[in-house]
């Protein structure tokens, strides 16, 4: 089966049936949980300091439940109403917004202590209409520029995603850098087809003192 992002836009692909199927699949739950914990680790927030986080593409709240357990306050945005519906049913604690991240955010400067995003930004690489504002570079630029503004200085944004080529990684990283972010890509288990995971670790500020973390390796 081809990747979901090639089949239909996310709000169509994750309709009622798919949203429930996705959320109730225990294998997906486990993978999403593992990646959320890893994203939190890469976020490397000061310990014992409560924080307000942004969950980009929060979906049905699989990552949000972990943010709840870990004691974070959070705001989640997603473009698929059916996924948000499921998140409501699961009674997550975060505030949920129906939002197209490619249209950009309106959060005031310095609103969030950090952001995480699990299996989402590859969706921004598909043009949905022929209108110029919906080209992937346009959407990525609005997304990263308004996200950069919404984050505190210093802070981090961690994105686990599924790129299909090095060109895609290049495009995403270069637009993020133009928007003001530092950082780069972390690949966990690069030599394992199954366990390999790509994380984009973006930094706001920090005076160049923030180093891109190392990927995990099998020992």
């Amino acid at each position, binding site marked *: 089966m081809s990747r979901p992002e090639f089949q239909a836009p996310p709000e169509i692909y994750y309709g009622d049936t798919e949203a429930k199927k996705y959320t109730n699949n225990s294998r997906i739950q486990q993978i999403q949980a593992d990646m959320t914990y890893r994203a939190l680790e890469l976020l490397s927030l000061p310990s014992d*300091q*409560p*924080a*307000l986080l942004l969950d980009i593409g929060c979906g049905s709240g699989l990552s949000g439940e972990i943010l709840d357990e870990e*004691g974070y*306050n959070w*705001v989640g*945005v997603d*473009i698929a*109403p059916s996924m*948000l519906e499921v998140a*409501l049913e699961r009674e997550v*604690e*975060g*505030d*949920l*917004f*129906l*939002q*197209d991240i490619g*249209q*950009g*955010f*309106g*959060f*005031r400067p*310095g*609103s969030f202590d950090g952001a995480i995003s699990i299996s989402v930004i590859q969706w921004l690489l598909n043009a949905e209409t022929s*209108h110029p*504002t919906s080209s992937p570079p346009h959407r990525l630029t*609005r997304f990263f520029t*308004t996200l950069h503004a919404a984050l505190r200085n210093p802070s981090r944004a961690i994105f686990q995603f599924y790129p299909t080529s090095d060109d895609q990684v290049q495009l995403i990283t270069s637009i993020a850098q133009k928007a003001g972010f530092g950082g780069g890509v972390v690949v966990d288990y690069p030599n394992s087809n199954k366990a390999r995971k790509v994380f984009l670790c973006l930094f706001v500020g920090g005076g160049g003192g923030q180093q891109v973390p190392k990927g995990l390796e099998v020992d």
Partner: protein
Amino acid sequence: MVRLITHNLLACHAKGCTSNNFPLQLKDVQVELRDAEYNADFLRGFISRIEWPALVDAARQLGDTSLPNEPPEMMDDDFLQKLHHVLLEIHIEEGAMICPNCAHVYPISNGIPNMLLAEHEIG
């Protein structure tokens, strides 16, 4: 589930709408109260991020008059409890948020605000 903490962070993001676009005006809202875990450290760390007059206005509009016009210098437990309630326990379930500048309406239904813009409103 728009709480006032989030409302206080939210400005209009329509194309060209860059001034007088905060706070979004609340219209025809229905609220629900839900207990949230009290965390004094979070509140102390967060208070510098709050646009105070906007928070006080929004709370009063929703019938909560517990907050003073200015944040007090002494953040005692009594004050922090009130702040906790206003920021994290009042949930806007229905209604709308309207931009004071461009008048864009962000409807709130079933606790979820619709932030989607039309093609001509995208920057």
